[in-house]
């Protein structure tokens, strides 16, 4: 009898205690406990209120986990999103074509925090106006490839392709190209150094390391509609070093080369046109473009000559003003023509303001031959009678895709 009672008590206890802790914590697993609510208000810029916010997609991106949520704004620019906890960048853009002018509205707010202790947030995004560019960045190959014979990473074959995306002749004369500071995108929630006291990115782009310009008097370097301009770090035939690389030593290509500023670069092949190096900071003997997460942009001097441009844009690093290496030429946003922000991880922090690039593009890794390439705008291409028109919403998340092999390897 005693044994039976003991056994029954034991069985009852086991039944009672199984799933005990799950029951105690079941409220922790409800949707309301594992998510937060974001209320978003989009506002068109002053003077452009006639453009509607209805139907505008709003993207919420968790910078830590890579989670993405999309909601649609109503005619009043309002939308609500229930999302997992995290730190979010919220962005939106739209494009309108009127009388051959493409108007782009985009805006972003980063660093929105949703935690179990702060589970609701109100966000207001002031959309910025910008125009689609005539000359755009078409492809950026920065990660290098694998040297077949050594098995090691080969990263000397970096190149950029610019493209005339319009129906009129463009001129490369005095167009400048650079990479933003810091050379690699900040990680783990850190913010870039060229920010204001509130932690917001300053209105422009910090050109770091060296300043490069297409050298011409005004109409020396035409770029026809649908034509490419290839600029490389080392203008040689890299396929002689490893077959899976590219030939960048072709006549008519351009290169970041100056015998004084970049003596460590390969001497360009005959027929390659060197860009003009007009500014440099730091002791480096080569031009540094990150293999991991560069932010590339093209810009103008705004009609100023080089000395005046340097004098007016030279900016010490706000966090390290005494360190010359981290100073930059801070290019005003109206002088930035186009930019593409490349990340290594989804949780990297942006260096470009929304007007330059409202998103980012990420390759799976360096040393594998990947490049980032602009998507074709099928509708605009058809309207242009077959001339390829690339997508340009000033958001590389939408405008770019990752190629398994750089396009010039197919030549």
């Amino acid at each position, binding site marked *: 009898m*005693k*044994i039976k009672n*003991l056994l029954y008590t*034991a069985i009852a*206890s*086991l039944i009672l*205690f*199984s*799933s*005990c*802790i*799950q029951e105690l*914590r079941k409220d*922790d*697993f409800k*949707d309301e*406990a*594992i*998510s937060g609510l974001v209320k978003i208000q989009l506002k068109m810029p002053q003077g452009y209120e006639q453009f509607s916010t209805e139907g505008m997609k709003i993207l919420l*991106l968790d910078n830590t*986990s*890579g*989670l*993405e*949520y999309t909601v649609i704004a109503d005619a009043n620019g309002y939308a609500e999103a*229930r*999302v*997992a*906890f*995290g*730190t979010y960048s919220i962005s939106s853009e739209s494009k309108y074509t009127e009388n051959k002018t493409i108007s782009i509205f985009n805006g972003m707010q980063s660093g929105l*925090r949703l*935690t*179990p*202790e*702060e589970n609701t947030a109100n966000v207001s995004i002031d959309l910025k106006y910008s125009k689609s560019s005539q000359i755009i960045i078409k492809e950026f190959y920065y990660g290098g490839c*694998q040297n077949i014979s*050594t*098995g*090691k*990473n080969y990263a000397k074959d970096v190149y950029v392709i610019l493209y005339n995306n319009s129906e009129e002749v463009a001129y490369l004369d005095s167009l400048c190209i650079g990479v933003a500071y810091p050379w690699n995108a900040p990680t*783990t*929630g*850190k913010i870039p150094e060229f920010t204001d006291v509130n932690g917001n990115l300053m209105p422009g782009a910090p050109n770091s390391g060296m300043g490069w310009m297409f050298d011409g008097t005004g109409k020396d370097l035409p770029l026809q509609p649908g034509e490419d301009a290839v600029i490389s770090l080392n203008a040689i035939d890299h396929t002689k070093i490893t077959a899976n690389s590219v030939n960048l030593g072709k006549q008519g290509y351009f290169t970041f080369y100056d015998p004084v500023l970049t003596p460590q670069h390969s001497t360009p092949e005959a027929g390659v046109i060197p860009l003009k190096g007009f500014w440099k900071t730091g002791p480096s003997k080569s031009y540094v473009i990150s293999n*991991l997460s560069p932010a590339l942009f093209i810009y103008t001097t705004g009609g100023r000559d080089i000395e005046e441009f340097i004098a007016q844009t030279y900016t010490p690093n706000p*966090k390290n003003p005494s360190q010359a290496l981290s100073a930059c030429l801070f290019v005003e946003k109206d002088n930035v023509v186009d930019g593409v922000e490349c990340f*290594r*991880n*989804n949780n990297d922090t942006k260096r470009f303001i929304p007007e330059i690039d409202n998103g980012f593009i990420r390759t*799976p*890794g*360096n*040393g*594998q031959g990947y490049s980032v390439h602009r998507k074709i705008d099928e509708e605009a291409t058809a309207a242009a009678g077959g001339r390829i028109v690339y997508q340009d919403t000033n958001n590389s998340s939408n405008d770019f895709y990752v190629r398994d092999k750089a396009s010039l390897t197919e030549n």
Partner: protein
Amino acid sequence: MINIMKLKYISIMLVALAVLAGNKQAMAQKNHYSFERIESMTPWLQSYNAAGLVFNVADENISTVYGYADYKDNGFKNYNEAESVTVLGLGTKSYTRLNNFYFYGRFDYSYTFKENQTWLGTVYENGTIAPMLENVPGKVHNESYKLNARIAYKVSDKSAFGITFDYEDAVAAKKKDGRNSNTFSNLNVSPAYTFASEHVNVGLGLNYQYNVENVNYQYYGEATGLHLYYMDGLFMYTSSTIINTMIKERMYIKNTFGGSAQAELKFGKFSFFNQFTALHSNHDLYEDLGLKKRYAVTEEMQYNYNGIIKFNGQKMENSLHLNYSNKESLLYNISNVYEAIEGENNQWQYNEYGKVLRYVAQSESAGAVYHGFIKKDEHLQNIDFSLGFAFCKDTKTQKLYPSEYNQSIYMRNYFANVNKSISIKDYGYFIIGISGGFSDGNGSMLVEKNPIKSGSISVHKDLVETDFLYKTAERYNIGGSIKYSHTLNADKGMSLWIKADYMYNGITMPEVSSANTEILNHFVEDNRHAMKISVGFNF
């Protein structure tokens, strides 16, 4: 007239002879001692209660020193098992009594070589449910030292106190990029008390465990395209590309509090031993060795029941072993924000803003084993045999708003073995054994609800499938063992033994698409082998 002194001497002689005869008999039986049998005769010896040492029915102290070599060749394996594992070990073990003090001690050293190990970021499998991992097959070397000590003091015929100290130190190192270096240590302290009466023995024990594991991934080579994976729960993961300047670290710290209760009923040859155990753990997971950022915490609750119903007849001992275990694990993700420290110039730190439940798992198992021991003497079987089964149910739920993933697995295991001893006069004896078993399972691999079509954290479907196929596949095993124990000194109970074990495992290969090399790499052959040879000296 009877000489009183002579009578005294004769009485003393008779008593001495009786004691000597008893001792000799006891020593003769000590030549047949094995630790397995001693622990089987007294269930308290394998309980959580160190004070239970006082119930040890073995008449003599016993100690052993041993060495072993163990080799496993895994033609089929789970995602985190190596292709082959070789273990070399040395150890010593002892049950000793000194007046009212009872001691148990064990020291074990082992060195392990693993070939083509993947997806293991901790020294031992399932060390944490939110590990950092990588998938490049490589050699792993492990080294471990384990020390187990129990002391009991018999206060009176009714009461005894005891305490357990367990300590383990282990290291593991992978020899190929991304190479991880792990150090692990575990400390367990458990004070206990027993109370004995004619028909009932009861015991209570408390338990505290602390274990910590450091992980450090480094990368020396030039190869590209390698990744580190940050996984949790049901194989949900993010990843980052490995570069040769990267160092990635983790620290896992676990605190466990618990207790146990024992009750043994004894009525003549019948006994019924019961043990209930409850353990609660908190496992803090940090992203660095400086404890600056706690990225997750796991809460675990485990209940166990073990019961042994025994009838110890003169010629045969029958016992029925019952067990039930229930373990719940909850994984919380910590919301960290990297913020500037107020008042400090350019100094940043991670601050926690709450935790979010991400994953819940429950594992229940129950089983029974019938064991028959036909005696040659109390310690050596003529024949012994076991017949048993075990059922296990695992359920897992992973949630990351708005997605939800569920998995359930049911496993069944049936097994039997028989051992026969053959004595070789007074020199020693052989024990020859055969065993066999069958297991299978079923369940629901992954029920997915994920309305987000792009950009969400991924579930590693290949690992989910490999793990599910491995656990639910039909498997059988058949094996044998042979042990020879040679008596070196019968009077002192010293013997030398050598044992060889072999186990063959077969599987009904699951159907896997030929394009899925990740899964196929874990089901290369339909068999695996395990063999072990060990030598020891008992005294």
